[in-house]
């Protein structure tokens, strides 16, 4: 995976990281670069500091510290020497580069009338390597199939960051679009028209409007578009049958999802939340769940062995008297919840 982001790195960083053993390079997930502070890398959900000789330690002393010059070169390379052309990205705090890799930035912000206008004096970078895992949704898809409408049920996928939500929805989009339904009963079904609203350019990783990841032949992508507006635009213009959205959470997102599901479109959305209980603490998600906008809720957890998922029918949540109490754990409703565990090795190709 290092090879995919190597072109972004200044020479000195690249040479250092290339000293990592081959399998480690393959599993690289994050590179955290902080000016004058130890270089940290993340792989398989763990993180280590990197020493000058390329070895990895848990303790930070003696680690390689990127200089101001290195950080400047890195910033130039990730912005294509044009920070001025990245105002929107700086406002959001990250840059998506070709290949779908997302680079988070931190530094001193510039305020304009109380709201953030950008970041200057950028001192920390977090390069997240995007990975396309074909078949990531194979275990999950059979659970989400709507047999009467021959499509997917509306689904909300919950997980904390770094658990593979985006990888999963990308693979769902691809499978639905190609018509690769992973069960025998669905084998004759056609592919569905898929619309993706890709606000962070992470799902499809579009470069000039053309997806660089394989998201299927019947997929339309609204790139770098605010989710709520993008959903409505796609519904009006491209008549999707399945809508895919990443990281919902604002009130207007909820509004748009409601509209789309009234139009008979299956919505597959992800949200940042540790689990269902956590999600119900967020008003927008709680409201959508209570209204029955989603048929299923999926929780993702990544463990040492792989990605586990747990599918919960959403009616079980909204029908229960405990649903209005955000403190009630969904696990307290064992009769209504039918859980299913799937397993996939994290380092599957």
């Amino acid at each position, binding site marked *: 995976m290092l090879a995919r982001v190597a072109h972004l790195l*200044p*020479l*000195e960083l*690249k040479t250092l990281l290339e000293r990592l053993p081959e399998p480690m390079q393959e599993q690289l997930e994050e590179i955290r670069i902080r000016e004058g502070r130890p270089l940290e890398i993340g792989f398989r959900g763990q993180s280590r500091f990197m020493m000058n000789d390329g070895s990895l330690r848990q303790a930070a002393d003696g680690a390689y510290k990127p200089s101001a*010059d290195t950080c*400047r*070169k890195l*910033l*130039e390379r990730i*912005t*294509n*020497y*044009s*920070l*001025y*052309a990245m*105002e929107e990205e*700086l406002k959001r705090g990250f840059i998506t580069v070709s290949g779908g890799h997302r680079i988070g930035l931190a530094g001193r912000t*510039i305020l304009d009338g109380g709201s953030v206008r*950008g970041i*200057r004096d950028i001192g920390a970078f977090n390069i997240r390597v995007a990975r396309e895992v074909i078949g990531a949704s194979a275990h999950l898809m059979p659970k989400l199939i709507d047999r009467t409408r021959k499509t997917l049920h509306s689904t909300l996928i919950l997980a904390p960051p770094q658990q593979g939500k985006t990888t999963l929805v990308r693979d769902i989009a691809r499978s639905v679009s190609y018509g690769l339904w992973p069960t025998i009963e669905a084998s004759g079904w056609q592919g569905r028209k898929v619309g993706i609203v890709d606000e962070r350019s992470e799902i499809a990783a579009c470069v000039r409007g053309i997806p660089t990841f394989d998201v299927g032949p019947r997929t339309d992508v609204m790139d770098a578009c605010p989710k709520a507006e993008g959903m409505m635009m796609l519904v009006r213009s491209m008549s999707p049958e399945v809508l895919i959205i990443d990281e919902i959470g604002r009130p207007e997102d909820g509004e748009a999802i409601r509209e789309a599901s009234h139009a008979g479109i299956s919505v597959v959305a992800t949200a940042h939340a540790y689990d269902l209980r956590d999600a119900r603490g967020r008003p927008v998600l709680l409201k959508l769940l209570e209204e029955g906008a989603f048929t299923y809720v999926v929780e993702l957890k990544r463990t040492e062995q792989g990605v586990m998922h747990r599918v919960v029918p959403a009616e079980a949540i909204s029908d229960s008297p405990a649903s209005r109490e955000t403190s009630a754990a969904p696990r307290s409703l064992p009769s209504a919840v039918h859980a299913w565990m799937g397993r996939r090795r994290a380092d599957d190709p």
Partner: protein
Amino acid sequence: MIKLIGAALILFAGTIIGFQQAARFADRPRQLRQLAHALQRLETEIGYGHTPLPEALERTASATPEPLAAIFRRAAAGVWETESFSFRDSWEQAIKQQWDMTAMKKNEQSVLIRLGSTLGISDKEDQLKHIHLALLQLKSEEDAAREDQGRYEKMWKSLGLLIAVLVVILMV
């Protein structure tokens, strides 16, 4: 006979040297003007087009006459060709390599190099301010260059011939 040919050669050479010197004085304000136009073009690309810097430089190069165009072209190419370069390094190297081909002097070189250390690494407003500053500095250099042109261009044109005549007289 040979003396005559030699004298003619000296006269010819002296005239050419004089004209060349005069041409340098005439070229400098012209090139400064072209440079200012090029920077204005770059300003537009950055301010309105939000064009990425390497592409903006390429476009500027294509609208600028040689030898100035080569500076912009090389600065854009340098960052891709040499991996260890930051933009500042690439820009500085392009200017230094190409400078002898131009009629411009140290002052404007340092203005350009200073501009290069800010290009691409700040927001739009900041970029435009830096380009504006460079343009102002170039303008004052251009005025000085015009004054020099008026003063020395004609002088050199005749001076070359006159020195050659003097050498011939001394030799005879």
